[in-house]
Every structure is written in C-alpha cells, then in structure tokens.
C-alpha cells in the first residue's frame, strides 16, 4: 500500500529538503512527488488547493494538507513522536521552548542572508544570471554576524538548543549545504571553529546524506 505521507516539490528546493530530512530522521515512509515549477505547476488550481500561496513544499498526510516547511516538520515530530529520533522536537516543554527559540532564530536571522547567498552563489550561475555583488557583500556581512553568535553558543553547547541534535540544527542543513559547496560561502563556516565542528557533525547524519543523494541529478 502506498505511503499516506506525500511531499510535493523538487528536492533541490531548500524548503523541500528540510521536510525530507525531518521525515528521514523520524523514519516516516513517504512519497515524493515532483512539481514542475518551470512549467508553472505550482501556480495551477490543483496545487493551489493544497498550497494556496503557490510555493513548495506542499504536504499531505491521510486527510490533511499542510504547508510551510518548519510547520510541517513540527507536525511530523508530534504525529510520529514514538518513532525514529524521539528527541528531535524535545520531550519536555522546556526542551521544546529552547528548540522553538533556535528554530525562530534560524528563520528570522540565519535564513534571510543565507538564502540570498544560496541564490547568488549557487543558483544564479547555473541559471546564467548576473550575480549582484553588493547583495553578496551585504549578505555575507549579515551572515558573519549571525555565525559569530552561533560560534559563541556552540562553544557552550554541543548543538544549538542543547546537548542533542534537534529540529533547530536540522533546519540549517539545506542552506548550509549549498554554501559549503560554493567557493565564497564556505569560509564563513570553516573559519569559525565551533560552527565548523557543528557542521561536520550535523551534515554527516545518515538522514542528511540521503537527502543530498536525492538532490543529485540522475547519472546518465
């Protein structure tokens, strides 16, 4: 019988890969349905029914549909609490509060400059678009300040929310993966020893390695 959980969207999308990493950590079976964005599939009525903002990922589990990758990840952790990585979203209210705080920090402080850099350094060259040098400089400056805070935090704790790997760390995987493969972006992470140590740990998790594999184009 086909898995009831369906994720819609291309795995090269950072938001889609965030959800995939979470599902793999929680050992939840799922079907991945591609959405052909170059053909505008994400703006068609059938897709808008499950994601009214016309963005990826969209997500279905039995009778409901959800959107927003971090909200989907929280849902997966709560619905499938007793399987896979049980501590991914914490097991006590205090743990959850700390994870939520660093998830918000990722969304509010880390994501904007890192997303700009992912587009400029990883996507724009592949799309043959001219890079915006000023935006790259500004985004690097902003991201550097955020990573200074992370480096200090990761000098006190093993992972962002505490001593265990959680959703807060996972949420950083997609953007950082692209930046570590871009010549200019890598240095921001490798030059900060605690951040570098943290990245090596979180990116070597089996779940993330599987997502990275899913993003590779099929070999000819």
């Amino acid at each position, binding site marked *: 019988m086909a898995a009831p959980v369906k994720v819609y969207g291309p795995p090269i999308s950072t938001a889609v890969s965030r959800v995939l990493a979470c599902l793999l950590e929680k050992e939840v079976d799922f079907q991945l349905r591609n959405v052909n964005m170059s053909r505008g599939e994400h703006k068609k009525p059938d897709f808008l029914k499950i994601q009214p903002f016309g963005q990826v990922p969209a997500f279905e589990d039995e009778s409901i549909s959800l959107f927003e990758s971090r909200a*989907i990840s929280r849902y997966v952790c709560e619905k499938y609490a007793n399987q896979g990585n049980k501590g991914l979203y914490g097991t006590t209210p205090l743990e959850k509060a700390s994870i939520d705080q660093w998830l918000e920090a990722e969304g509010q402080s880390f994501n904007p400059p890192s997303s700009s850099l992912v587009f400029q350094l990883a996507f724009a060259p592949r799309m043959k678009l001219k890079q915006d040098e000023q935006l790259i400089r500004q985004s690097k400056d902003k991201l550097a300040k955020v990573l200074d805070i992370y480096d200090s935090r990761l000098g006190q704790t093993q992972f962002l929310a505490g001593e265990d790997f959680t959703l807060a760390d996972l949420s950083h995987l997609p953007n950082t993966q692209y930046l570590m493969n871009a010549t200019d972006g890598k240095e921001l992470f490798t030059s900060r020893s605690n951040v570098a140590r943290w990245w090596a740990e979180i990116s070597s998790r089996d779940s993330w390695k599987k997502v990275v594999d899913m993003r590779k184009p099929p070999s000819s």
Partner: protein
Amino acid sequence: MAAAKLYGAVESAETMRALVSLYEHDLEFEFIPIDLKAGEHKRQPCLSLNPFGEVPVFQDGDMVIFESRAIMRCISFIYPKPGKEHIFMEPKMQGIVAGWIDVEDHQFDPLASKLRWELVYKPKNGLATDEALVAKMEAKLGLVLDIYEKRLEHSKYLGGCKFPSADLTHLPNLYYLMGTKVKRLFPSRPHVSTWCDEILSRPSWKKVVEMIEMAQL
C-alpha cells in the same frame, strides 16, 4: 517565587506579540522596559539574555526564551488555560495552526512591516513616504488577504475553530495598519474584516493598546 519577566519595548511589534500572549493566558509578569533608542538591547546585560541583541525576552525562573513567536508558542504550551487553550493537542489540528503561524511570519509580516515603516514610522520621524513602494506592497498584501478570505470562509479563525496563536500573532501589525490608508483593503473582504474586528477587540489586546497609549504620554 519571583514573577516571570518580559524584557521589551512597548513600541516594538515583537514585544506586543509576547505581551498579548501573556495577557491571554492571565499570567503574572513584570514588564522591564528596554530603551531601544539608547541601544540598551545591544549591550549587557541584554546580550546575555538574547545574544542577537533584540527584544522581547521572556524569563521564567531558569528559563530564558527569545524570539516573540517562540515565546508565544512556549506560553501556550506550558500555561494552557483549560477550555481556552491556544493550541490543539491533536497533531493534525496543531499542524494546521503551526502552518498559519509561519504564514503570518513569511507572507503577512514582511509586507505589513514595510507598510508600517512607510506609513507610520516615517511620517512620525519627518521622513518622506515612498508612495510607489506603498502601492506595490499594498497590492501584494491584497493578494495575501484574498487567501485569508478563502480560509476564513470555512474556518472561524485562521488556525481553526478556536482563537489560537496563529491569529494572535497578527495583532500588532493589524493594529498599526488599521490606522493607515491600508485599512481600505479590508471592507471588500467581509470574512477578513469580521475576523479582524473580532480579534482586535479581545480584552487581552486592549490591555496592550493601553500600555502603548500610556507610553506615548
């Protein structure tokens, strides 16, 4: 035992968000005003509470939490009011709430914040409003509100059948926008209009407004 503390600035939308959550849950707390103009939030002791140098920060015993939406989630999870919870225990229903909290964050707030900056902050501080930008942001906000209108046709609140965090989190920006010409987006969207009126008249929000008004004196 010492009461909980909220460090913040009444003029900050993020602080307002945390305040209304505290009032909704009838929690005793002490408000510690932080002088943003003097840069207090970027210095110690604030930096040891929030290394990002921002407000609000919520402190309850040993627990210190920053980021307004994390504070909001934490309060509704740790201090639910029986019968008036802001969260659903059932994962699917809570998943829907979580989705709409992020919609406010990623779809509504960026536009509403820019409009607030252009139409409220700039005039107050003698700066010229960029009308072309306002027109662009207003048009985009209209599209977002169209999606809200569809959702509210079938659901009393964005998050579901009871007033949850996903609706509460809109209050600060809605309050400001209603004092600008952007309020003209609402009457043509009857469900959004009704929803807006209802949540803005909640007693907890009125307490926050009172704090804002007193601070202007």
